[in-house]
């Protein structure tokens, strides 16, 4: 399966979910996690990932702090904030609804015309 770029609007949800599941994490960790979860079908270059992080930070959904990483490198760790948690719940719900809706549209027609 060819690698694809992340769809607009989905990256924020992926980042928030990642931070929700794994707790505070640096950019590299977030990128690895998203690539692994997508079974390497998604690639995240810096130009995609970091602006998204900046935007989430500006919106107040995540906050950043420099700390030591697990293998002793200084790294900037991102963590969910309370508004971020709320936003995640909201987005998650919306995605489910959209997914159901799209699925219903794409399902083979059953009714007769």
């Amino acid at each position, binding site marked *: 399966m060819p690698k694809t770029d992340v769809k607009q609007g989905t990256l924020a949800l992926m980042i928030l979910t990642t931070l929700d599941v794994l707790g505070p994490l640096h950019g*590299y960790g977030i990128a690895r996690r998203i690539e692994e979860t997508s079974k390497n079908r998604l690639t995240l270059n*810096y130009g995609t990932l970091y602006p998204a992080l*900046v935007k989430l930070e500006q919106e107040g959904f995540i906050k950043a702090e420099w700390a030591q990483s697990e293998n002793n490198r*200084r790294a900037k760790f991102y963590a969910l904030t309370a508004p971020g948690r709320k936003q995640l719940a909201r987005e998650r719900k919306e995605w489910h609804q959209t997914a159901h809706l799209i699925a219903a549209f794409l399902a083979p027609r059953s009714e007769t015309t």
Partner: protein
Amino acid sequence: MSRIRALIARVLRSGHMEHDLRDELQSHLDMETDEHIRRGMNPAQARRQALLNSGGLTGAAESVRAQRGLPWVDSLLADIRYALRTLRRSTAFTAVVVITLGLGIGANTAIFSVLRGVLLKPLPHRDGDRLLYLRQAYDGLGGENVNFSVPEVNELRSGAKSLGQIAEYSQWTQNLEGPNDAIKLNAGLVSGNFFDAMGLSPILGRLTRPSDDGAGAPPVMVLTNEFWMKRFAGDSSIIGKQVRLGGASVTVIGVVQPAPFFPDHVDAFLNMVVSPHHVSAMMVQGRTHRMTEVLARLAPGATLDMAAADIAALHSRMRQEHPDAYNPASHYRIDVIPFKTAIGEKARLTLWLLMGAAAFVMIISIANVVNLTLMRGVRRQQELVVRAALGAGVSRLRRLLLVENLVLTLMGAALGLGLAFGGMRLLIALTARYSPRASEIHLDLVALAFALLLSVSVALLLSFAAFLPKDGALASFISAGMRMSGGLKKQRLQRALVVTQVAVSVVLLAGAGLLTRTMIRLADVPTGLQTEAILTVPVSLFNSAHYDASTDAENKALYTRMQAELRALPGVTDVALGSTLPLRASMMSLNMKAEGEAPSSTGVAPLNPEVRTVGPDYFRIAGIPLLKGREIQTTDQPGSGKVLLINKALADLLFNGADPIGKQLAFTGDVIRFTPLNYEWRTIVGVVGNTKDAGLDVTPRPAVFLSFAQEMAIDGGFVIRANSNVTSLVTSVQRVIQHIVPTTPIGEVMTVAQVKDQSVAPRRLNAALISLFGILAVVIAAVGIGGVLAFSVSTRTNEIGIRMSLGAASGQVQRMIMREGGVLVALGLVIGIALSFFGGGIIDGLLFGVAPRDPVTLVSVAVTMAVIGIGACWIPAARAARIDPAITMRS
């Protein structure tokens, strides 16, 4: 606001953030490289792979910066730099715009600050908008404000349910003695509840309270903050100390917070007991003994209308129950006025007039700036089209213009604020004559915001008015050879602006003309005195609190001694003695009746002349014409029959042409018992001319002049004539008096000319300010007319060239251009004169001796404007006439 702050912080932090971003991307790269090495790559390979995956570090950094919003700031800074560069290149344009706007914004900001401080800002009193001022008045001379008597106040207090608290106040002066000197203390005698009712708090000590009321309370004094600073240098140990006031001891109990005091600007407040009169039976029981001002606070839930209705009902009952105290012919009434309105009454008209004039100047200067910008915009059309063609989006260009205009107008605002700051002292001095709130004026944040709002609006307006090529319409511009032309619509706008400028200038000039004529008329009003080179020196030996018969002879001896020593001064030719000197308003007027007249109670308002006392030769020395009879003579001594003189106003009122000499007058009313006067008949021995004592614009009031020697002295002072310049005598006169009566304050020693000048001064300042605005407006408008016409000529150079080569004479061309400008000037003139004619009534209250539609003023304004307008057209017209057809055709 917080967004702006965040933006600024971001710009300031941008260096740090760049660093942070680099570190973060580096750490990402390092961790990924580590990972690759762990999986078995060699370091070089690992690094290469990591870089490959990153998708480019520089690109990533740029995307992050874009997300952060920094480029916006960067390009804004670039725009500002560019704007400054362009403006520096066109110095003349920049200077004219900045100065024009600066004058407009300065005038508006300064006057708005004054207006806000004096009329609009909430009072410092607690719930100041619920305070009321009550005014009892009747028709006729001296009836504008007759105050209240204590029984009236008591009835209002018990009857008016819509008034929560009613406080009493009466104006009182007394000599305050210090260790080395004495000054005249302007005080208010107040009821104990005064400060509570007014909603004022002490900044030191305590204020009066109901237990300070009544004849048995010890006398106490509350200082105003201003007086405490001035007299006691803010020394807090003064609280609890005794001061000597007119021979009695009074305890200072506190200092009240700074606040505007009304109806008088006072130094201190005292309880009623310091004035035996104020706690006497007469004062407390006499219904017509009206010496009290009433200030009140609305009861919770009550409104102004409720209070007015309540008081009207109470007052009508009072008039029914006491017909003798309210002469029906005089139509007694009580006005209920919000305190804030009462305080601003005198200043309101002047200030709104100044605000209007300033707004007019602003209109003219904005019109001018818009015109200049439009013209400059047409000249820059080429530049903008080229920029657009090279790829600058229209919105980017629009923003560039906006930034440029903002820089321009903000520079104007800065200049304006500077001007406003400089003009503030003058305006505060002007306002202090009209309002007790002048000390509350300062350039405040609201005024600053006002100036900023003005400049930003102007900038928006300018950017909107500017020409910009539309996207996609570039080709047509370029193919049309990018010729300069304003376009018909733009030119029509410019012409409309010129017409507006002329019209508004005319209105301002008309106002300035009317006020200037008022001032001149006022200064020309005869004072009633035959000369103005007389020195007048008030010297008050007496306590208004008690007229003491035992010290009277001693006081009179002091006056006689002073008179003798003053007369002995070198240069002095004559000295006369008298109380309440010429051209100074008298505080004392009492009811009188004429011989053979029934006591006034039916139908006519009582006679209420001003009372003054004079010594021998007073009128000759003061230069007041003696119309009939004789002056007071040295033979009019206490033993002989009591005599008096009356002024022409009283003679006309009372005797209607008949000869008053030998007729008799006597004082009436209960009040007399509290004055050093009595009810004896006094014979009229002379009639003197009227003098304008209450102001040059006030009809002279009836007055009587008693003999200084025959009466117990009320007050005193001297009029001094010299054989040379009287003003040079001031210091020696002061020295003589100080030597004889060291503890007595000397009033202002002024010549009659100075007194007169002082009374005209506020009007002169008014006229000067409005004239300044008027001249400003005309200059700006003339620049506007000339500029627009010159521009029109420069766009028509080709056309004019063609006309001339086809045979038009240069005179014809000149006439054509003059006509083009003349039409605009004429149209503006007509509109302006019409506006002045119909709007003139607004300033009627500030005029004296001229009608608001004074034809002389309007005609001279029209002529002035026409001459200036035509002059402004002349220059571009002459230039058009000099156009050389050969040159224009070739270019």
